[in-house]
């Protein structure tokens, strides 16, 4: 028995949202009489941070403290329409819709404040701490709360905003086939180091190193968290997940999600992520979104690392010990490939 180490890499150009246009998201924002704002979305937070990111974007655009913004994603029957939380579209599509709604609501908020202060709304600014004042004259001010109360009970005005983000359908040029399928791409490169046991066919991921370019990172800790969890899912897709991982006969396979094989806390690999920011021109504050690409490059990088280690190309997922052993047998033995990157980069 021997352990063979290999290194593989993969790069991704990842389109954000559904291609070819369409793909709308709507947001509605209104102020309550106490000056707190509710953002209504039908996009769902699966734990990836949709609510937090929408809250940050709304507070920043409205010019109010973040604790005064509540995001409600409770009900897609009664909420504004949204295509959904998929295709890594959340931050980009919902974020843009939230900005549009927050701008409109902010406009009404400033008009209501202007009426109370007897000035022009164009001369008003927010301090982000719950106050609205005349530009250059902080003493001429009113709180957001007092403004909301006045709008509700004195002026009879609704402080609210509507937002939608829709990319027009991309037409295809009949002559050339040319079109503009997508407006924002995120990018990543990931290097995986593995060891392969030539007797059992088992693969151990030793470490992974990656760089992700995601546009403006709106919440850095949540992005890191999502990238780490997604990389674990990538390892799971690459090496574990199938209804019959080690058994040709489905009778012996898992019967439910309890027996469905995924890596446990003892199977994880050290993972280093570098996040690069290149703001997208049409993203909310330049944001694109990590989403599915957290997992995507892990699979080809591990496949390449296995090939590098023992010379076996597994082209079906997951890359189980059985498939690797069959490959080694078909090749008449292991065939370690040259190591790229030179000895200096090699452990």
């Amino acid at each position, binding site marked *: 028995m021997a352990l063979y180490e290999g290194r593989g890499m993969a790069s991704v150009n990842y389109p954000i949202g559904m291609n070819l246009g369409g793909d709308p998201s709507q947001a509605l924002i209104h102020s309550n009489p106490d000056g707190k704002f509710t953002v209504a979305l039908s996009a769902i937070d*699966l734990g990836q941070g949709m609510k937090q990111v929408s809250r940050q974007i709304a507070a920043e655009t409205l010019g109010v403290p973040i604790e005064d913004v509540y995001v409600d994603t409770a009900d897609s029957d009664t909420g504004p329409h949204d295509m959904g939380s998929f295709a890594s579209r959340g931050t980009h599509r919902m974020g843009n819709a939230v900005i549009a709604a927050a701008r409109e609501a902010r406009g009404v908020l400033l008009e209501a404040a202007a009426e109370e202060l007897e000035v022009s709304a164009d001369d008003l600014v927010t301090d982000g701490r719950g106050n609205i004042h005349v530009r250059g004259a902080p003493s001429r001010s009113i709180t957001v709360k007092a403004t909301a109360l006045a709008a509700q009970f004195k002026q009879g005005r609704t402080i609210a905003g509507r937002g939608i983000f829709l990319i027009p359908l991309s037409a295809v040029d009949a002559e050339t086939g040319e079109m503009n399928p997508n407006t924002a791409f995120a990018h990543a490169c990931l290097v995986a180091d593995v060891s392969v046991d030539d007797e059992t066919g088992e693969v151990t991921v030793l470490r992974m190193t990656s760089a992700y370019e995601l546009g403006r990172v709106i919440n850095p800790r949540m992005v890191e968290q999502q990238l780490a969890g997604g990389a674990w899912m990538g390892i799971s897709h690459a090496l574990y997940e199938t209804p019959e991982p080690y058994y040709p006969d489905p009778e012996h396979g898992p019967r439910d999600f309890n027996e469905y094989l995924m890596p*446990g806390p*003892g199977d994880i690999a050290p993972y280093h992520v570098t996040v690069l920011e290149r703001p997208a021109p049409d993203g909310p504050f330049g944001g694109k979104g990590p989403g599915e690409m957290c997992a995507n490059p892990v699979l080809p990088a591990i496949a390449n690392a296995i090939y590098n280690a023992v010379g076996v190309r597994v082209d079906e997922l997951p890359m189980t010990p059985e498939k690797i052993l069959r490959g080694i047998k078909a090749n008449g033995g292991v065939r370690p490939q040259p190591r790229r990157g030179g000895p200096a980069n090699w452990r």
Partner: protein
Amino acid sequence: MAKHPVQFRLNGSDRATFVDGAENLLNTLRRGLGDFAPKYGCGQGTCGVCTVLVDGEPHLSCLTLAVACEGRHVETASGMADGPDFHPLQAAFMDHFAAQCGFCTPGMLTAARALLAKNPNPTRDEVVEAISGNICRCTGYEPIIAAILAAAGSSGARRA
């Protein structure tokens, strides 16, 4: 079918209720006593989200008969915070972003609490072993392991 009276301490308070003989502790806690911290996941003892402490030992409440807890002390994640003050494990889970969807979190906290009560300064391998019966499908486990190790490091203020 006759109901059985059962009394035990739940997070330091004496509680009493009536249960069916075959009723599991998870059902009693959630439906009978309104403690929703332990979750119903697989219902067959493999996912760990229903983990509670019985006399300080981690138990899967979906596989534990409620009547077997008579006179014992049951602790759930609901009892970890002291008023507005989080338990050091809860604070560490927040600081390390050790939850995404949050469904596994009460079980993870409870498994970690049992570990640290016995072994205040665990190694990484011991932490991995302690949570190996708890499934997480979001975080990739690393933030959870880091949070537990950090909480162990902040042992000065730790309660059992």
